[in-house]
């Protein structure tokens, strides 16, 4: 979780320096979904993410340097700058395609689950997507397929629009649905649903773990709605470090929490929340958290150096073959 947080902070900083083509879509505030969810996956399982994918990809074990290089569209990136920050894929980790078209990952994950069931090896497929996905038609078609064909797929809806249900609230309208209860839809298809606090690492782990188990053992789809409160820095059209680089000391010294965005930092930040929980249960010490943070920062520093120093793709890379097995056309 800390790796995702420091990585995304670096992405935002690099963007401010003009090094990220386009505007990045970051995962800050949702770390407590990807990380515990991924802990239940095995090699051979597949996962499909969206335009907001960095957290899932890091949690699945991708190399931060190569991922960052892809975000910067460098030749050393996972996909040589052809995918960029919205479509990185790395089949060796089960990340077969990352679609930035809203709801398409749900369709792809459903099909990957069909293939897994067909093979019968106990593999499953997971789709991560935002609440806006429920505004697209293919979402419903896919859930219907998963239900009638009993596919081993886990749909993890990362609802980051709790403050933003529609224009009416005056927030960025990422979710405009005629229902306030997203789980009504999958439930209508007979799919097992659960709502979980997306900032609660252990709760997400229990919920997704049960869904993964259901997929693996009885081959049934599940829908987990993990609710998060959107990080204030993502409320804008492109992310900005409005809460600064995360100061972990805020977890044990609330006096350090600034007034601006203080509510999010005190109550909704999953990274600070997990620190507080681990400290209060005395599972880790302050020193251990600080040491971990230092080591993560070093990893991210290394990734930044690797990516920034990596060459751009040579111009001919634009003519990378469009078809497997032959060149051109």
């Amino acid at each position: 979780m800390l790796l995702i947080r420091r990585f995304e902070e670096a992405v935002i900083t690099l963007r401010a320096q003009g090094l990220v083509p386009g505007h990045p879509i970051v995962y800050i505030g949702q770390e407590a979904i990807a990380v515990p969810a991924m802990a239940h996956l095995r090699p051979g399982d597949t996962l499909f993410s969206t335009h907001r994918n960095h957290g899932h990809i890091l949690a699945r074990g991708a190399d931060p340097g190569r991922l960052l290089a892809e975000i910067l569209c460098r030749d050393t990136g996972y996909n040589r700058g052809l995918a960029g920050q919205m479509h990185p894929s790395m089949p060796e980790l089960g990340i077969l395609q990352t679609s930035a078209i809203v709801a398409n990952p749900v369709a792809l994950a459903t099909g990957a689950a069909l293939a897994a069931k067909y093979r019968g090896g106990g593999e499953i497929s997971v789709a991560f997507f935002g609440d806006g996905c429920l505004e697209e038609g293919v979402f419903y078609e896919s859930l219907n397929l998963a239900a009638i064909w009993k596919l081993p797929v886990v749909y993890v809806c990362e609802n980051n629009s709790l403050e933003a249900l529609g224009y009416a609230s005056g927030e960025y309208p990422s979710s405009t649905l005629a229902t306030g209860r997203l789980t009504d839809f999958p439930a209508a298809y007979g799919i097992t649903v659960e709502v979980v606090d997306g900032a609660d690492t252990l709760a997400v782990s229990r919920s997704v773990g049960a869904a993964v188990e259901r997929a693996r053992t009885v081959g049934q789809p599940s829908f987990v709605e993990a609710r998060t409160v959107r990080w204030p820095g993502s409320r804008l059209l492109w992310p900005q470090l409005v809460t600064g680089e995360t100061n972990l000391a805020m977890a044990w010294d609330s006096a350090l929490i600034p007034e601006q965005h203080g509510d999010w930092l005190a109550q909704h930040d999953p990274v600070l929340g997990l620190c507080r929980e681990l400290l209060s249960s005395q599972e880790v010490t302050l020193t251990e958290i600080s040491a971990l943070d230092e080591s993560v920062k070093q990893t991210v520093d290394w990734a930044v150096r690797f990516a920034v120093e990596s060459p751009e793709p040579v111009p001919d890379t634009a003519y990378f073959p469009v078809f497997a097995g032959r060149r051109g056309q």
Partner: protein
Amino acid sequence: MNTTFAEAMLGTLDQLLDEDQRAVIFGSVWLGFSPARLALWQQLTEKHRERVYYPPISEAGVCGAAIGAALNGLRPLVGLGTASFAFQAWAQIVNEAANAYYMSAGQSRVPAVFHLMAGGRDGAGPQHVHAPQSAFWNTPGLEIIVPATPADAAGLLRTAYESDNPTIFMNHLDLLDVAGDVPPGVHRVPFGRAEVKRSGGDVTVVASSIMVHRALAAAEQLAAEGIDVEVVDLRTLVPLDRDAILTSVAKTGRLVVADDGRLSCGVASEIAAIVAEEAFESLKAPIRRVTMPDVPAPASPLLMKQLEPTAEKIAGAVRSLVGTIPI
């Protein structure tokens, strides 16, 4: 001459399902709705019961799922039925399947075949009569096969299946009962290899799918008038056999392109542009395109006949190029 196009296609599907456990079929209307062909289809599906998925009416979801399954190791054969139903799945086919290989820098593959039927039954009207091959051609990353004969249907379907790329199989409805010889056993037709279906020296007619038969009929008529037509059957649009087109035009110096899609930005337009760019000096006359005009397909069979690119229209275009009627 005793195998129909439908039987040939079915024969290949049966072979593929027998040979390769990764082969699965989505969709139930590969052969249209005639009772005889439906009975054929039933034989296949009864034999391979566990390998045929009958999807709900969800083209987007089904194509998306087929693509996801292909990414994850299966080799799906997707029967969409009427070609216009592919519009429901556009975002999946052109934005997921077509992009996968390039976008992943060659790491992900979508070895899926999407079978679509162009043309329409009498009275079908604007929404069920489409031949969108040029629209797919406008999307890099899709192979497009347009067979005209049973042998080519059997052989190209196999090549499409064995390809690691997504392939669009455009099958005109009127071809399903066309009969011909099909080589026994495993038969492959390579991609990007056009075939001269009739040799001639005066005018080249480039065609594909149903238009090959209309071009051959036109060539028969014209032979009686002393005009010697060469019919080049493209067989695949992507990849395209440019050499075959240019070689024929170099010989005849005159070109008619026939396509059952629309005129503007269509298959015929692309062929015409290639020849104009690369063989201008060979041309003795302007290039002619014979296609559906840029008009929706009317339900009335009488009105449809006005718009359809028929053998008569091809013959008319050929005559205009050899000076028997004024250009």
